[in-house]
């Protein structure tokens, strides 16, 4: 009988410690194979689509729209992962039409009709490095 309140106190303290542990354990992002697959696949598709940017945009409009749609989906997917702010910001930078990676390059192609071969080669290289940054961060998250 004497041990009753003491046991209750111990149980409460144990529950509090476990609750704190669970709350602390919720810190930090976790790995997503889907995100890696998205970034790898979009890296290749972006390079393939941009390789055509020396040709009239109007002839490749559908392909560009499809690519934009896939990047939007990947970004939305990243938003579904919890504690994933930095990866989400990377995707936003990549797709931003007013930026200077994939979104910006596609907008420039659309605005100017076609782009020079040298520019396409150089900007594709920068975009590819951008996708590498996304992949690198994702693969280093705990599995």
């Amino acid at each position, binding site marked *: 009988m004497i041990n009753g309140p003491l046991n209750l106190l*111990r*149980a409460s*303290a*144990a529950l509090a*410690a*476990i609750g*704190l*542990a*669970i709350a*602390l*354990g919720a*810190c*930090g*992002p976790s790995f997503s194979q889907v995100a890696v697959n998205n970034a790898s696949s979009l890296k290749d598709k972006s390079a393939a689509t941009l390789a055509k940017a020396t040709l009239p945009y109007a002839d490749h409009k559908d392909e560009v729209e499809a690519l934009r749609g896939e990047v939007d989906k990947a970004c939305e997917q990243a938003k579904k992962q919890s*504690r994933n702010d*930095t*990866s989400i*910001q*990377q995707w936003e*930078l*990549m797709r931003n039409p007013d*930026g*200077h*990676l994939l979104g*910006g*390059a596609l907008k*420039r192609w659309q605005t100017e009709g076609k782009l*020079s*071969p*040298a*520019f396409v080669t*150089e*900007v594709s290289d*920068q*975009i590819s*490095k*951008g996708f590498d*940054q*996304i992949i*690198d*961060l994702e693969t*280093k*998250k*705990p599995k």
Partner: protein
Amino acid sequence: MASFDDFTSELDGEIKDLVEKNWKDLKAEATDDARAFLQQSQADLERWTRLLAAKSLTLQDFEFLLAAKKDLAEMAALKRAGLAQVQLGRFINAVVGAIISAAAKVFTA
């Protein structure tokens, strides 16, 4: 024909002026950041200025590529921030383990 050395010496002067005029309070940091950015971008800058001189790139192309370089630097900074968060998560997981272990020892013994 203008050389890459001409370009870097012109650029060095412009960066000094820029820091003097607008970033005086952060002079050392601003100059270091600008130099680090240039160092990381040197190979690309050399190629792009060559392509600009050969008129394979327009000035607008060149500006866009430099801005892309800046976006990439931001991507890299985000990656570093994300990795720091991962490290913090691992540390906290270790703390969680310690809390559970201590709780088991003290309260369930």
